[in-house]
């Protein structure tokens, strides 16, 4: 190949043309791509650019306040200072500086930071909460040295009342990872507080209010530069709705103090409306503790302690038989089913023979009618009634076991009440299929069910059910709807709105029959096991007598000391409130459960405890639940 270098004019022109085409092709290559990006896919890139630059700030609204039935403030919020971190803009080596400025050990800070990054490297999260003012100010002064660090005012719940109301209020806590996955759609974000149990959980949607949003342009360092679109897209937060509870915080505080060193629960209910005036479960806890970061000891107490302080004994205890407080119910049912008349006398020889001998309290009662049977708590009387669910040597079958169970359900036992609390147990009322299942069809007889007549054996009821049933006896047969929230108060206008609770149900029972039962219960108070819990006119003459009616009970406990039970309503002649109390492992109902009820009733009606009854508080407080659970 031996040619002269191709530099002829034509050759040069050819090469120029090729070069020109190459340049144009190249420009077309780049230009084509620009057309695709800037004209065709522009929306996609615009979205990416906005995703970069526009940060949405959630403005948390003030959570709704909580008041008691008298308008006393129970819970509001206090402002706390928090330091946040956006991991993607933050240089972790600056943790040392933060540690120095805030006076917090570096290892703790590092651990918290690692936890945040493990959860999400992109979302802004709280690095330090409840920061003391001076530390906050020092950090803020050094903001320019701490890209990715943000500052925020947070709120936490502040509790004002002497009454802890743990199981009523529940508590709020930073939303968990699982909770977040579930509630992200509703606008919850990492670091948000959410009601976990109690009213805080049940009324979460109204208490929370509406979250506000502001959109900011954020530079590459995560710093807010200016409002997006001049703030046109921003949404103002709306404070949460206030709740006025049916709780009387002073009755509650007294009741809680009476439960010191005890396990158990108590419920006081308005017999006409169903409003819960007091609900105690002991032991309880301070709701502000689970809201924050807990020490190991606190975690152990709340979650691992075998006394289960988080467990609401007032609504969840399902294993405790009601004992003799069941007898008014049995009486009402027997009267209604026509098994007895109000004056029908049955014979008590001091016990009842059914396979073995069941002893009766207080020896032989002889011929006894229903009022007196309630007054002296005659077991024999109620054994006989219960055995009428079978054909026995004493008489024919006059009532089916399932009819009995049906009545129990109508009085609210063995079922869930409509209630504005998340945790509730139905308790236990056995029916024939329950026994069939346990012992086989035909494998059980009167001996298996006779105990049910005196409220023992295979049944369980909690204080809320006891109070509600007592209310139904007191008000003449209306099964009220228990509830905790009386009114919802708009924080902006102060306007109150009554929530729609389900309507009360009527128990189809002859009023006269309940009247007979009430008379029996009155005798218990005036001349029976609860006579020491009567509330007489005060010695200083300021208060007249509050006539009460009630029934003591002792719930047999095969595993330890028996449980003390008491139900009551007052005033006898114009019933306003009903109470159900269970004190676990505390023996006879008359010793602790009755005085507790009596004091709660007095506090409710009089607003104080008469001086001569202060000693009663002391003696109840000194009483302990004994043994293990």
């Amino acid at each position, binding site marked *: 190949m*031996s040619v002269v270098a191709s*530099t002829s004019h034509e050759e040069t022109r050819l090469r120029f043309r090729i070069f*020109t085409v190459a340049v144009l092709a190249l420009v077309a290559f*780049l230009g084509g791509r*620009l057309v695709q*990006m800037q004209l065709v896919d522009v929306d996609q890139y615009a979205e990416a650019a906005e995703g970069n630059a*526009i940060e949405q700030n959630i403005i948390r609204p003030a959570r709704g306040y909580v008041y008691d039935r008298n308008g006393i403030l129970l819970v509001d919020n206090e402002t706390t200072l928090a330091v946040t971190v956006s991991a993607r803009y933050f240089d972790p080596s600056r943790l040392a500086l933060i540690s120095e400025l805030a006076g917090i050990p570096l290892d703790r800070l590092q651990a918290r930071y690692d936890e945040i990054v493990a959860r999400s490297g992109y979302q802004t999260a709280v690095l330090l909460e409840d920061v003391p003012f001076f530390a906050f100010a020092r950090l803020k002064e050094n903001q320019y040295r701490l890209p990715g660090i943000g500052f925020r005012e947070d709120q936490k719940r502040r509790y004002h009342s002497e009454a802890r109301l743990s199981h009523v209020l529940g508590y709020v806590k930073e939303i968990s990872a699982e909770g977040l996955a579930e509630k992200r759609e509703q606008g919850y974000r990492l670091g948000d507080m959410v009601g976990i149990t109690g009213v805080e959980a049940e009324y979460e949607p109204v208490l929370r209010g509406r979250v506000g949003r502001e959109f900011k*342009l954020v*530079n*590459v360092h995560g710093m807010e530069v200016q409002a997006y679109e001049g703030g046109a897209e921003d949404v103002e937060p709306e404070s949460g709705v206030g709740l006025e509870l049916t709780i009387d915080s002073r009755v509650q505080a007294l009741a809680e103090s009476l439960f010191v060193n005890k396990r158990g629960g108590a419920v006081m209910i308005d017999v006409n409306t169903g409003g819960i005036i007091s609900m105690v479960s002991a032991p309880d806890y301070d709701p502000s503790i689970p809201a924050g970061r807990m020490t190991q000891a606190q975690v152990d107490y709340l979650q691992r302690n075998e006394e289960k302080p988080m467990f609401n004994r007032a609504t969840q205890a399902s294993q405790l038989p009601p004992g003799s407080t069941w007898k008014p119910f049995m009486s009402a049912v027997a009267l209604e089913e026509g098994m007895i008349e109000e004056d029908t006398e049955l014979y008590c020889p001091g016990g009842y023979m059914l396979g073995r001998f069941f002893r009766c309290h207080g020896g032989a009662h002889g011929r006894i009618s229903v009022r007196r049977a309630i007054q002296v708590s005659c077991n024999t009387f109620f054994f006989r009634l219960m055995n009428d669910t079978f054909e026995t040597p004493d008489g024919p079958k006059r009532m089916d076991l399932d009819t009995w169970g049906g009545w129990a359900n109508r009085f609210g036992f063995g079922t869930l009440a409509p209630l504005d609390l998340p945790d509730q147990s139905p308790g236990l009322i056995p029916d024939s299929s329950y026994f069939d299942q346990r012992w086989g069809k035909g494998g059980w007889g009167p001996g298996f069910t006779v105990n049910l007549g005196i409220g023992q054996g295979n049944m369980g009821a909690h204080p809320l059910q006891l109070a509600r049933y007592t209310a139904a006896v007191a008000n003449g047969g209306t099964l009220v709807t228990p509830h905790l929230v009386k009114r919802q108060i708009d924080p902006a206008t102060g306007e109150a709105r009554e929530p729609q609770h389900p309507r009360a149900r009527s128990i189809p029972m002859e009023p006269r029959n309940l009247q007979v039962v009430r008379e029996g219960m009155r005798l218990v108070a005036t001349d029976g096991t609860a006579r020491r819990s009567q509330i007489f006119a005060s010695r200083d003459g300021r208060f007249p007598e509050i006539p009460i009616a009630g029934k003591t009970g002792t719930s047999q406990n095969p595993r330890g000391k028996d449980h003390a039970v008491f139900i009551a309503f007052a005033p006898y002649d114009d019933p306003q409130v009903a109470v159900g109390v269970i004190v676990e492992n505390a023996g006879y109902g008359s010793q602790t459960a009755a005085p507790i009820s009596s004091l709660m009733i007095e506090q409710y009606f009089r607003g104080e405890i008469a001086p001569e009854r202060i000693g009663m508080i002391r003696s109840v407080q000194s009483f302990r639940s004994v043994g293990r659970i």
Partner: protein
Amino acid sequence: MIPWYKRLDTPSLLAWACLVGFGIAAIWSSTHGPAREFLLDSVKDNANKQAMWAVVSLVAMGIIFSFKARLLLRLAPVAYVACLGLLVAALVFGREINGAKSWLQIGPASLQVAELAKVGTVLAATAFLSSRGVRSVQIGWNAGYLVALGGLSLLVLVPCGLVVMQNDTGTGLVFLAMGYFLLYWSGLVPLWVVGLGAAAGIAGYLAIINPLYLAIFVLLATIGYSLWTRSKLATGLIFATTAGIGVAARFFLFSVLQPHQIGRIVAFTDPEQYADTAGYHVIQSKAAIGSGGFFGKGFMEGTQTQLAYIPEQSTDFVFTIIGEELGFIRGTLPVLLLFAFLLIRLSSLGVSAGSAAPKLFAAGVTGIFLTHLLVNVGMTIGLMPVIGIPLPFVSYGGSALLANSTMLALALAFHARQEEFAVYRTQ
């Protein structure tokens, strides 16, 4: 006879002014928005400094125009040796910026010597080739031809090697491209051999993008060559070159390089996959340009620019500011068209001069500009790996602006004063 200053090409100078104007505006925007407070003090004044460098460049261009063309060409050896000296000095005394040791502090100015070295090299190569009288060189195994080829290679490869030693591979590539274009325009090699080089480049690029495209390209190139040259040798060579380069590139990419090195090269093909490392730049850059749309977001209104999401935005990524704030019709398309115009105009002027020196110089200069344009714009829109070389006349950088303006001025001067090359023409 037309005086030289009347032959000075005004449209090219206007194109220069437009591109410099785009650059200063973009640099102003990136340093006077909300991002300003986070910038280093030395960066805040970049727009003013660039304007000052534009004035310096203008003065330099005036000086160049005042010299006689032959004198300029005779200065080539001096300029070349001076450039090599600067490159060596930078290697020894230089400052390292962004990993490349290519900066030399001289008095108050820090110079990026690799940029200046381009001027000396292209000038020297032009002087060398035109003095050899390339027209009379016989292609083949003879001393004249081998000296021409070898001399050109040496002139280009020595500075290229020094630049690569400074760890500035991108600029090294530019030197190679310059050599390639000089070879192309000199006529020292037949077209089909030049084609081999272009095909090798395309094959290497496609090897990164997609092996399937590579295979199709190898096939088409081979068929095309066989139809065009009807030579078994050429056809065999094109197949061997494209397939060989393609396979070697893929082997090199996936078997020799470390993962992070692979990432830097292939990230542009799938930036999301490398979003935390090499892909970040590409994602942000594309978001900026793409979101600019047809009209742009408005001067000083681009969020990507103003909120500093793009690193190196006034230097290597200046095109993103133009794309985001001025959009397609007011920004990116005009810039592309200005470059296309300038490239074609310069080579056309070179060719029309009728003598070797203006043509060869224009060849070298357009080769440099073309490579910068392709690589720089290509990387901002995700068509090229992120190789840090600036956009001529637009990117912030005094040395580069001065060097590029000088080259433009020389090319224009050689054209305007073509009469003075008569002595070479007869050779």
